[in-house]
């Protein structure tokens, strides 16, 4: 199998400095947030990679870098063997972009409330010239109808406005819009976090069905490990802009190696073991403006030693699993 998406040493730095006048008068320094700091992974065609982590760990930034909503500060994204950076000419990039689409978290904010579903789902078709100019509205209507059917809505829904749908139905409209250009790769940024569990089940089932039918490749961003366990083939765990563990789903959930992964797994409420006491995690995610030196997780880590405080661990492969941890490397845990 070949990798459809290849990410190499991807980084994004945001400038969050105070305005120029404040810097001059109050002598405030420039400030930068390293939202994503050297992330590398590959996704095979037809597979799902999930990125998990707590708020502020940079997982959504990775998603936006992949589809080109942000330009990377460093590193590269290769799609189907081709570079996607700005050095390529616009027309080529456009064809590449057609093949990757994104589904956003909030189905209330990501659909234009003044547009009918026909226009929302039809826009990418028109934009990428996927309907013949001569075909007119009938062809558009037919195509949009097909797309709506494929996500479990009715063709007649194309005449409705977003406010006439429930949250789950809106998220289906977003999926239909993303599918309009017949993409191979979908980036899903917390697609079910805003939904109720029964509706979440509907949306996750549709996404799985679509993957089987159309051979889609997913990058699935979530903070919910139970959902990730359900959808993913591979899981990457992020902490403060870096990947700390990258493993096949089975390995990650049966034998988590990085202390942060263990902590996350421990923190999940388990509905089937009523009454089990879980070990609450100590401490909180540090301020990303001023991350700790060495391993970013060391202030909260029960296995940290002097080396962890000074030397930043790199992702290394242990028995097929990539982990960035000195304790794992030294065999201390």
């Amino acid at each position, binding site marked *: 199998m070949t990798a459809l998406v290849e990410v190499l040493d991807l980084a994004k730095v945001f400038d969050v400095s105070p305005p120029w006048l404040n810097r001059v008068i109050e002598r405030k320094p420039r400030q930068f947030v390293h939202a994503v700091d050297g992330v590398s992974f590959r996704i095979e065609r037809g597979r799902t990679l999930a990125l998990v982590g*707590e*708020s502020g760990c940079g997982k959504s930034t990775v998603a936006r870098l992949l589809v080109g909503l942000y330009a990377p500060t460093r590193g590269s994204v290769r799609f189907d063997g081709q570079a996607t950076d700005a050095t390529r000419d616009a027309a080529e990039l456009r064809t590449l972009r057609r093949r990757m689409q994104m589904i956003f978290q909030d189905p209330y904010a990501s659909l234009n409330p003044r547009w009918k579903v026909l226009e929302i789902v039809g826009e990418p078709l028109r934009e990428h010239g996927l309907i013949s100019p001569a075909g007119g509205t009938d062809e558009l209507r037919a195509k949009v109808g097909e797309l709506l059917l494929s996500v479990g809505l009715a063709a007649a829904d194309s005449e409705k406005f977003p406010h006439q749908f*429930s*949250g*789950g*139905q809106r998220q289906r409209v977003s999926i239909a819009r993303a599918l309009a250009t017949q993409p191979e790769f979908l980036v899903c940024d917390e697609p079910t976090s805003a939904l*109720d*569990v*029964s*509706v*979440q*089940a*509907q949306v*996750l*089932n549709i996404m*799985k069905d679509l993957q089987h039918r159309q051979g889609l490749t997913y990058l699935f961003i979530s*903070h*919910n*490990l*139970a*959902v990730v*366990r*359900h959808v993913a083939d591979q899981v990457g765990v992020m902490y403060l802009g870096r990947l700390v563990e990258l493993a096949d789903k089975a390995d990650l*959930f049966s034998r988590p190696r990085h202390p942060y992964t263990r*902590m*996350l797994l*421990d*923190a*999940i*409420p*388990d*509905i*089937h*073991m*009523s*009454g*089990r*006491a*879980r070990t*609450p*995690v100590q401490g*909180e*995610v540090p301020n990303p403006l001023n991350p700790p030196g060495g391993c970013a997780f060391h202030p909260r880590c029960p296995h940290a030693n002097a080396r962890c405080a000074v030397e930043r661990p790199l992702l290394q492969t242990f028995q097929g699993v990539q982990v960035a941890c000195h304790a794992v490397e030294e065999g201390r845990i």
Partner: protein
Amino acid sequence: MNKLLLDVRHLRVEFPTRRGTLLALDDISFSIAPGEILGVVGESGAGKSLTGAAIIGLLEPPGRIAGGEILLDGQRIDNLPYEQMRRIRGRRIGAIFQDPLTSLNPLYTIGRQLIETIQTHLPVSHEEARQRAIHLLQETGIPAAEQRLDQYPHQFSGGMRQRVVIALALAAEPELIVADEPTTALDVSIQAQIISLLKRLCREHGAAVMLVTHDMGVIAETCDRVAVLYAGRVAEIGPVADVIHHPQHPYTAGLMGSIPAMDEDRERLLQIDGSMPRLNAIPAGCAFNPRCPRVMPRCRIERPELFDAGATRAACWLVVENGVAA
């Protein structure tokens, strides 16, 4: 039979609108014993937060209690005048809300808010109140409590703020705490800390808790009993283990099946088709009947009340028809 701390009987909450009256809570009945933790679970719009708001007397107008009664320790509190209810709120019933940033006043220091709350409800001097505030913050696990007392809410992280809110709720030693989605705005690792903190403190202080959440996992870990709400009605109520492992109502069964589990592999999740009805279009009979996989003709006409179904009580005709688990 234990003495009941909170007894909610046939509670109805209405919202009069220009296009007719919406019945948001329809005949809700449940009770909480002293020191007990009752979970209230349901999807958005099921009426779980509204139930909490009705109990603490903070229904937003035009919402109003249209029927039924709420008893705290045998005394009716749903029809008390505002002033009297204000004294019960905070003193005998504490409240914790979802967003810790909006439940704290950004213009006052944490200490001022805690001391004010303590002095409002308890006859203590300023210095005693301050000592008590420091003690409360220490109890909730806030490091350097004495210095933190003089800081403002924005200087605290989300998890720390929620600890302050818990300290505020416990300030006057209430008998009941209504916690409305206390961990929803927090990250998973912080969520675990707050849940165990809430559980421990309420046990130590002997406070009962009504925990409103949509997260079945939180319920499973924390509660003694759980009430499942659907479209403003109680679908099922009973001990947590029974409701989770042997749900009697098809809605509860569907809800449990739709949660991705950590200990089993399923290709597809069980899904309940459709979505919860809007308040102006609640179907006749059982509110769940259009989505129910086991619907019977009777369900479309007659509304089921809560029937005894083994360990739990479920509002479902199946229980009456054959007593078989859903």
